[in-house]
């Protein structure tokens, strides 16, 4: 069992995604720069694990997820699913193979209000993947539909309804059911609870955890909300401006963060306890523009330790400091 768990399921190596920016005009568009959305990140997810990707808006979390699914083609880098490079398949134009690969990975989008077609009933929405992949014989489709609804905690009569008749939490359940329709092994959940109320948030988080145990799925969980990440994830990577700055087991990361950005991020979370003594690290300024990222370490303009260690000139690479705890900071080595 242990060996099975240690097997790498998804590997991402030096993933880069740059978006070009063009000058205005219709005819003579000139490329005037690039947005460094993701700039060389590597990580791997083991089978059956929940891997958290955290960071503030604009740090490249969603872009990472989209490139893994090839919704956006990566600029450079390698993504392997179960040891096979996905880029080769996606570029091969072999439709059958691409569909086969797509069945293994599914995406739950951030906003359940925007990611469901308002003109389709719930049944249409969930049956559509069956039609595309035709992995379920016609006569069994309805049965499977009701099984899926039951799995995510919806009732049979919901199948004939339209998305606008549901609350946010129920819509997110529909999105999850749709993703599960193809029996994926990897589920990418992009801020699945960000737009939901606290009481409903707990329902969805419990549902995701329950499904993982039942179906042995692997999760890539993307969020900016560190308290839900701590609750649901086994391992966490913190991103800042297109790079991973720290990666460790969840408890290790939350108990002893090393990178100054992680420390500030953790101290900034409001704790629901009026008696907690807060020693907040308030970061000056804001995230710099990803068009002209700062030289050297990307966190350097906001870092209180940046004067030493040559942070202004030298970019930092992730270094293992033991226990599978990786940090990209000059101070960690010292």
């Amino acid at each position, binding site marked *: 069992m242990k060996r099975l768990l240690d097997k790498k399921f998804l590997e991402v190596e030096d993933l880069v995604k740059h978006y070009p920016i063009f000058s205005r005009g219709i005819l003579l568009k000139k490329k005037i720069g690039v947005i460094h959305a993701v700039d060389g990140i590597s990580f791997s997810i083991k089978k059956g694990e929940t891997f958290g990707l955290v960071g503030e808006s604009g740090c490249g979390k969603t872009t990472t997820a989209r490139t893994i699914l090839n919704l956006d083609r990566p600029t450079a880098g390698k993504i392997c699913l179960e040891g096979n490079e996905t880029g080769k398949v996606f570029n091969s134009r072999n439709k059958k193979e691409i569909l086969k690969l797509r069945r293994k990975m599914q995406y739950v989008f951030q906003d359940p209000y925007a990611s469901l077609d308002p003109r389709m009933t719930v049944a249409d929405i969930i049956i559509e993947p069956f039609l595309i992949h035709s992995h379920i014989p016609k006569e069994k489709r309805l049965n499977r539909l009701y099984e899926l609804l039951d799995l995510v905690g919806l009732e049979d009569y919901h199948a004939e309804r339209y998305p606008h008749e549901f609350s946010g939490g129920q819509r997110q359940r529909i999105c999850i059911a749709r993703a599960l329709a193809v029996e994926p092994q990897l589920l990418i959940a992009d801020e699945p609870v960000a737009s939901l109320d606290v009481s409903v948030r*707990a329902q969805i988080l*419990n549902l995701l955890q329950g499904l993982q145990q039942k179906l042995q799925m692997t999760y890539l969980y993307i969020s900016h909300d560190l308290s839900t990440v*701590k*609750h649901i994830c086994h391992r966490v990577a913190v991103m800042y401006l297109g790079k991973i700055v720290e990666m460790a087991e969840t408890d290790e990361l939350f108990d002893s963060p090393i990178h100054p950005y992680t420390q500030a991020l953790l101290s*900034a979370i409001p*704790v629901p306890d009026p008696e907690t003594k807060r020693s*907040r690290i308030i970061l000056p300024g804001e995230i710099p523009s990803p068009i002209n990222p700062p030289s050297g370490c990307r966190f350097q303009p906001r870092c209180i330790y940046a004067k030493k260690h040559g942070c202004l000139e030298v970019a930092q690479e992730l270094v293992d400091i033991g226990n599978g705890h990786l940090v990209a900071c000059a101070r960690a080595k010292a």
Partner: protein
Amino acid sequence: MVKKILKIEQLKTYFYTWAGIVKAVDGVDIDVNEGETLGLVGESGSGKSVTALSIINIVPSPGRIVEGKIIYKGENLLEKTENNLQKIRGREIGYIFQDPATSLNPVFNIASQLMEVIKRHQNVTKKEALEKAIELFRLVEIPDPEIKIWNYPHQLSGGMKQRMAVARALSCQPSLLLADEPTTNLDVTIQAQILQLMKSLKQKLGMSMILITHDMGVVADVADRITVLYAGRVCETAETKTIFYNPKHPYTNALLTAVPSLALRRDKLAVIPGTIPNLIEPPSGCRFHPRCEYAKPICAEKIPTLEEIEPEHFVACHRALEIDIKSPLGVEKAAR
């Protein structure tokens, strides 16, 4: 004796839609002491924002304030004429709207939007108004205020826009600030900056504040007292510590246990079954009873009134004194 700056009594604001009457706020009592921060907590649809909008009487159509009193510094705001209210909005009561991106006018630069408020309420020339606006920008710690003030809203980031919204609300040094989810759309590090800023400004200017939020972490940090709303009614009002350590209303406790916490590791989050009720036909009696684990037949029949069960601790629950509720923090404290 603490002076009350604002006292809301039995406020009822209804929305007359084609589908029926939505009772968004249905008999809310709130009071704010001078110099304190009151946290208004509840899920979406609980009537937090509508309460705040009602205070300065800008409830959008088809909504209307049906009943109630809003007594601000001894005067009932609901009896005032529109002209007199204009003098209070912005000058006496400042308002920070929920979404900084949509509450600023995209076709005017920041300077003119700030100066508009200043010129309206203070007898100053254009030049003086501009100086004041720049001074405000300095107060909310925006770098290069002389340059940034000529920017348009789209040129500023979310955090900057929120600072600008804070600056606008503070421009006439109001005695009461209504902040409607001021940090909800912001990243945590920026949220920490804005909360820090609001706390220090409140102290500097000696304001009272109503902070509307659904984030229990934010109120724990900022509020002196908390009022919990559910489906348009007040569930519980007490000091912040009491709410967190010794809540008496089942809904308050349910809210506290549903939040994943960094301090406590739980295998499974507690869940409040069901969803917020439809406010066109709200449940009879106590509005929380269909989702409440302690509900008894009486809860479905009689509307509970807000009663003071301990000094400064008001609860609207029939069974507040019978049931034994333990909040996660209360349990932890007892164990220590």
